[in-house]
C-alpha cells in the first residue's frame, strides 16, 4: 500500500511533465495539423537554458530561495519561446499550405539540427546538477518503507497546475485564445474575418515552447541529469500522451500525460524497468485500436 502510494506520487509528478509537453504538441496539431517533431528538442533546449541560468545565478550568489527558481523558470521560458518562434518562422512557415509530409520532414530535420546544435555547442557529456530543492515530507510510514513526498514533486505539481490554469484562461477567455480556436476550426475563414493567422500561429508556437520550458526546468530540478538526447524520448512519450488523450484536445493532452506517467511508473515498480517504454507504447496501440481518435478526441466527420 505504502509502496503503491509512493508510485502514485512519482507517477503524477512525471505525468505532469509529460502533460506540459503534450499540450505543446496538441496545440500545434490542432492549429496547423502537423506533428511538430522538434518539440521534444525544444524541451531539451529549455532544460539546458535552465541549467546555464542556474549556474550563472550561483556564480552571482543569487541561487537560493523560491525567487531564484522562479527567475530561472522565467529566463528559460523566455529564451525557449524565442526558439519556438524561430523554429516556426524558419522551418514551418515557408511550408504553410504545402502538402502534408513536407512539414513533417522539415520538422524531423529541425529535430536533428537542434539535437546536434546542442551537442556541438554544449558537448555530448551528461551534465549533472546538484539537487537544488532537497528534502520532502513524510506522508506515511510502513515498517521500514517511508513514503516521501519531496518538495520538488510538490513544486512540479503546483507549478504545473498554476501554469495550466493560466493557460486555460488564456485559451478560453482572451481574444488571443478566441483567435487560436478560430484558426483551429477554419483557418481561411478566420483570415477572412480579419484574424492575423500568421501571428496567431506564431504565438501558438511561442506558448507551446514556454510550456515545454516549464516542463524542461522541472525536469532539470527533479532529475538533475540532462544531455542533448533527452528530448527524443520525452518528445515521443509526450506525443504518445497527446495521441492517447485525443490529439487536438487540450484536457486530453494533460490526461494522456498523467496516464503515460502513471503507466510507466507502475510498470517499472511492479514488472520491469527495461520494458517500461514497451508498456507505454502498447497501451497506446491498444487504446487506438478501440478508440481510434484517442480518449477525448472528437470523431472526425468526413465530407465526401
Amino acid at each position, binding site marked *: 500500500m505504502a509502496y503503491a502510494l509512493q508510485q502514485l506520487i512519482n507517477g503524477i509528478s512525471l505525468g505532469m511533465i509529460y502533460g506540459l509537453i503534450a499540450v505543446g504538441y496538441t496545440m500545434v496539431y490542432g492549429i496547423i495539423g502537423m506533428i511538430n517533431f522538434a518539440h521534444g528538442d525544444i524541451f531539451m533546449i529549455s532544460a*539546458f537554458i535552465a541549467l546555464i541560468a542556474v549556474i550563472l545565478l550561483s556564480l552571482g550568489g543569487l541561487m537560493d530561495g523560491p525567487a531564484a527558481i522562479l527567475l530561472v523558470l522565467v529566463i528559460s521560458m523566455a529564451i525557449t519561446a524565442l526558439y519556438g518562434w524561430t523554429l516556426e518562422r524558419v522551418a514551418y512557415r515557408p511550408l504553410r499550405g504545402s502538402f502534408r509530409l513536407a512539414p513533417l*520532414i522539415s520538422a524531423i530535420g*529541425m529535430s536533428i539540427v537542434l539535437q546536434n546544435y546542442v551537442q556541438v555547442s554544449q558537448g555530448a557529456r551528461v551534465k549533472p546538477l546538484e539537487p537544488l530543492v532537497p528534502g520532502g515530507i513524510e506522508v506515511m510510514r510502513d515498517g521500514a518503507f517511508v513514503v516521501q513526498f519531496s518538495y520538488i514533486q510538490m513544486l512540479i505539481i503546483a507549478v504545473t497546475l498554476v501554469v495550466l490554469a493560466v493557460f486555460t484562461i488564456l485559451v478560453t477567455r482572451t481574444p488571443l485564445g478566441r483567435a487560436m480556436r478560430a484558426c483551429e476550426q477554419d483557418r481561411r475563414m478566420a483570415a477572412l474575418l480579419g484574424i492575423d493567422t500568421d501571428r496567431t500561429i506564431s504565438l501558438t508556437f511561442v506558448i507551446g515552447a514556454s510550456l515545454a520550458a516549464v516542463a524542461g526546468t522541472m525536469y532539470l530540478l527533479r532529475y538533475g541529469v540532462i544531455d542533448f538526447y533527452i528530448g527524443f524520448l520525452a518528445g515521443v512519450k509526450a*506525443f504518445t500522451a497527446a495521441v492517447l488523450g485525443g490529439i487536438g484536445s487540450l484536457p486530453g493532452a494533460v490526461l494522456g500525460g498523467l496516464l503515460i506517467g502513471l503507466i510507466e511508473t507502475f510498470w517499472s515498480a511492479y514488472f520491469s524497468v527495461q520494458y517500461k517504454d514497451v508498456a507505454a507504447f502498447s497501451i497506446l496501440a491498444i487504446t487506438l485500436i478501440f478508440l481510434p481518435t484517442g480518449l477525448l478526441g472528437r470523431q472526425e466527420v468526413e465530407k465526401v
Partner: protein
Amino acid sequence: MTPAAAVRDAAIAALVAFGLFAMLVGLRTDVSPTGGLFLRQRWADVALLCGIVFAGRLALTLWLGRRALRPSTGPTPLTLQLQRLGRFFAPAMLAAALVLPFIPGIGRYELDIGILVLTYVMLGWGLNIVVGLAGLLDLGYVAFYAIGAYSYALLAQYFGLSFWICLPLAGILAAFWGVILGFPVLRLRGDYLAIVTLAFGEIIRVVLINWASLTGGPNGISGIPRPTFFGLPFSMSGGEGSFAGFFGLEPSPSHRVIFLYYLIFFLALLTNWVTIRLRRQPLGRAWEALREDEIACRSLGINIRDTKLSAFAIGAMFGGFAGAFFATRQAFISPESFTFIESAIILAIVVLGGLGSQVGVAVAALVMIGGFEVFRNLEEWRMLVFGAAMVVIMVLRPRGLIGTRTPTIALKEKRIIGKDLVGEGRG
C-alpha cells in the same frame, strides 16, 4: 523592400540570433574534475554567428526582393530541355552503377559508399511502396530492417543456415511482421498511424536490447557469416573450394566487396522491378487508388484491408531483404543500428525524392547518403548539416526533387500530372 528596410530587417534577425545563441553558444557548461559544473565563455563565436545571420538575412531579402519582380510564366526553354535530358538520366545512372567497380580509381572506400547508398536506395524503394504508392505514413520502417538483419544473424548463429537460405526467410519473416503490425492499425489514419508505427519501431528496438539471452542485448551479435558466391567462400587462401581458386584468380579482398556491391545492386533492382510490375497489376492500382481516395476506393469494391496489409507486407519484405544484406555485410549488428533516426532518414529519402517516384528516391538517396559520407571530415557537425539540408530541401522543393508524377494508366496518352494535383494519401 528598400535597402534601409532590408538592413533594419537584418538587424532584427541578428538581434533574434543573439537571443538564441547568447546562452547556448556563448556559455558552455563543462564538468570539472571534481564533478561540479563550470562555464566557459565564447563570445567571439556568438558575434560570428550573429554576423552570419545578419549578412545572410540581408542577402536573402535583397535577392528575393529582386526575384519577386519577375513575372512567373510557364516552363522556360531551359526546364523543357532539362526534362528532355531527364529521359536519359535514369538509364545513364543505371549504367554508371553497373560499371562502377571497374572504373579506374574506384577503390574499396568508394565501393563501400556505393554499397551504403544502394542499401538506402533499396530501403527507400521498399518504403516507397508503403508511403508513396499506398499513401500509408510509416515511421517505423526500420523495425523491418532490424527484423531482417536479426533473422539472418540468429538463423545463422543457432541453425548454421547459409545466407542464401536466410535471405528469403528474412524477407518472409519481415513480411509476416508487416502483417502483424498492419492488422491492428487498419482503422487508423494519418498521424495516428504515424505514431503507432513509430511506437512499433521503438518496441522492436527495446525488445532487441533487453532480450539479451537471445539477441545479445546491447552488445549485439558478432561473427555473422559472410556471404558465399553460391557456395564458394571468399577466402584469402585461394584454395580449390574458394571463389578465387575456382575461377583461377589471384585472391584479393576486393572480390568480396565487389560481390557485395553487385548483390545489393541486384536486390535494389529487384525491388524496383517488382514495384514497377506491381503498379501495372490490380494490386498496385488498388494501392494508388487507396492513396488517392480511400472512400471512392471502398465504394468501388476494393478490399481495403487486404490492400493495406499487402502494402505493409511487401514493403516490409524488402526492408527484411535489406536487413539480411546489412547483417552479412557488417558481420556485426546491434540495436544501435536500428534507431528511430534511421526510419526518419529513409522516410526523408522517400519524401525528398518525390513520393512514388523511383528515380527521385534513388537521386535523393545518392544526395543525402553520398553527401553525408563526403562530409565525413566535418565530424560532429555532420549531422547538423544533414538536418539543415533536410529542412532547406523541403523549403525549396516541398514536393521533393521529382514532384510530378506519370500516371500508371491513361486513356490515350500519358500526360505528366502537375505538382499541385499529385495525391499523397491520408492513411
